[in-house]
């Protein structure tokens, strides 16, 4: 008898707990819903603004759906032909910088992971990373004069490709170090004993194992370089223009062509979004760390 009562009580308790959990879950979902609205709304507003007429963007009462659709905006942004070449310039700079960051960051990361003592140890690696912690503005002017004295000047692809290493190389080095550390050294040793020379062993064994991580690092570097504005604004402008410094040019005196600006921004979003979609499969594994255990 007592036992049955116990079971009955346990059941009600279990039911109560389940009830409570369900409530918590609903609350959480509601919260997530709000969060989603909050983050997606700017994107939405940007997208519809890109299709509005110039007049409609300046109404005191904003509209949340275009009264009239103006897809011509997307052609209009290229009325200035250098606007298209700006996208190309940005692409060259972002890609060049990413490749260089990956190459140098992998080499350095490997050294920190495998030969910590010879490479200066954890402190050295952390010091490199700490280079990302100062406000970039602090080095804006000195960097300008520094690059101004190089043969290629400031207004060139190469200047920004190299300059962005200041930010991307520490990140790439640190992350690659973490990924290389996750690859047991014994795997490379086994490869040596199989008869592979060090470089071949690296390519055959280590590289495939850090590749997902490497792709994630590439994405982070690429997006930073693609979106950088502060330095680009000061460094380049006539021979080379990045798309980020084109965006403010849609403001003329007191008037801003919001529709064109948003249309151009939307176009500038396409390359990173496409990259993300294509590389997502590898990225997610890379960012969830502990890449290759097993």
């Amino acid at each position: 008898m007592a036992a049955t009562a116990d079971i009955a009580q346990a059941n009600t308790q279990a039911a109560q707990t389940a009830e409570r959990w369900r409530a918590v879950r609903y609350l959480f979902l509601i919260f997530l819903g709000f969060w989603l609205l909050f983050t997606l709304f700017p994107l939405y507003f940007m997208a519809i603004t890109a299709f509005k007429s110039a007049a409609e963007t300046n109404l005191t009462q904003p509209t949340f759906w275009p009264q009239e659709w103006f897809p011509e905006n997307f052609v209009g942004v290229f009325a200035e032909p250098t606007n298209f070449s700006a996208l190309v310039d940005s692409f060259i700079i972002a890609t060049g910088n990413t490749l260089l960051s990956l190459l140098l960051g992998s080499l350095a990361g490997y050294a920190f992971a495998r030969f910590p003592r010879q490479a200066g140890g954890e402190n050295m690696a952390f010091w490199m990373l700490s280079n990302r912690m100062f406000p970039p503005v602090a080095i804006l002017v000195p960097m300008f004069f520094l690059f101004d004295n190089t043969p290629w000047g400031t207004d060139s692809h190469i200047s920004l490709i190299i300059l962005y290493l200041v930010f991307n190389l520490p990140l790439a080095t640190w992350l690659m170090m973490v990924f290389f550390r996750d690859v047991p050294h014994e795997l490379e040793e086994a490869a040596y004993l199989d008869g592979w020379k060090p470089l071949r062993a690296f390519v055959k064994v280590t590289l495939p194992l850090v590749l997902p991580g490497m792709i994630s690092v590439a994405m982070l570097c690429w997006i930073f370089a693609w979106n950088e504005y502060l330095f680009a604004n000061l460094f380049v402008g006539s021979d080379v223009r990045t798309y980020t410094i084109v965006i403010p040019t849609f403001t003329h005196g007191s008037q801003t062509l919001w529709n064109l600006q948003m249309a151009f921004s939307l176009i500038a979003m396409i390359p990173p979004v496409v990259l993300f979609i294509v590389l997502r499969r590898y990225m997610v594994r890379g960012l969830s760390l502990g890449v290759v255990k097993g």
Partner: protein
Amino acid sequence: MANITIEGLCKGWDFPVIDDLSVEIEEGEFFVVVGPSGIGKTTLLRLIAGLESADRGRILLGEREVTHLPPYRRRVAMTFESYALYPHLTVFENISSPLRARKKDRATIERRVKAVAQLLRIDHLLDRKPGQVSGGQKQRTALGRTLVADPEVFLLDEPISHLDAKIRQDLRMQFHTLEELRRVATLYVTHDYAEALSLGDRIGVMGNGGKLVQIGSARELFERPKALFVAEHLGQPTINAIPSILQEENGSLFACAENAALRLALSPQQSQRLNGGAKRRIVLGLRPQHVRPADELRGRDSEIDAQIDIFEALGSNGIIITKAGGVTITGLTHPERHFEPGQDLRLAIDTEALHIFDAETGLSLLEEPRWQG
């Protein structure tokens, strides 16, 4: 095809691990290294493989000095305790790695990998990744990768420790006949003393101080251990080690257990070897196989009274753990017999087979001190 010659090898980190170790292993010899955990067995193999650099000493494969050669120039194949399988490659690609590194043609690779996989009974797993096979299958994959390599030296670091008893037995038998292994010098590390005694042409027992305490055939090590350490390390159940004092009475020697009533008469030969030495502190080494219930063993035995503590019936023999005169002594009996805890019984001890070690140094007092055989 080559001998391994190791001369005065030293290696240490914050403390010496391998210290002035010298040994020569013949081509075709199966040399087993046993020793307690953390003593430096793996370090020795890694030194020979070139994965660690020696602090001092020389390593020769045949006539060729390899002490300072990188691993990929040494033609050495090794299994790792952790297997070190390539997680992104299939079992087939893992096993074929040494062949691919040496640019063998596709047909040869296919043939050799298949043969080895069949031997190790993993031929149905060749397309799987290491993450999709069991621990024992991983170990066999690692062994397979080593066996296909066709090296001058095999270094096997506990290659079959994680397999079930039956496969282990099978592979042990294979090791006896496997031509790959019998052609070249093999260094084999194991914790399993049966494996060591069964496989080793010679066995080296590694002890504290980073040396091989004794090297010899299985029989030699088992019957004439030069140190208590060796005797304790080989044999199952472990040898009884009884701290004792030598006493002389009417011209013959007795070993008396310290603080206990146990007293064993030594044979005249043993007394002669000990050369008097009364009052000397010793450790009496008594293998369980030489301690039996009195009704089972007859002859040149001393008999003592004892009481059963624990009786374990294993498959092929029974183990009796007894108290005799305040000392715990392990002995063997027939598995079909039965004893109750607390039961009195008379034990017979084959005193001819006694080992006597110095209490301080742990060295045998009956064997000639012939070091580094």
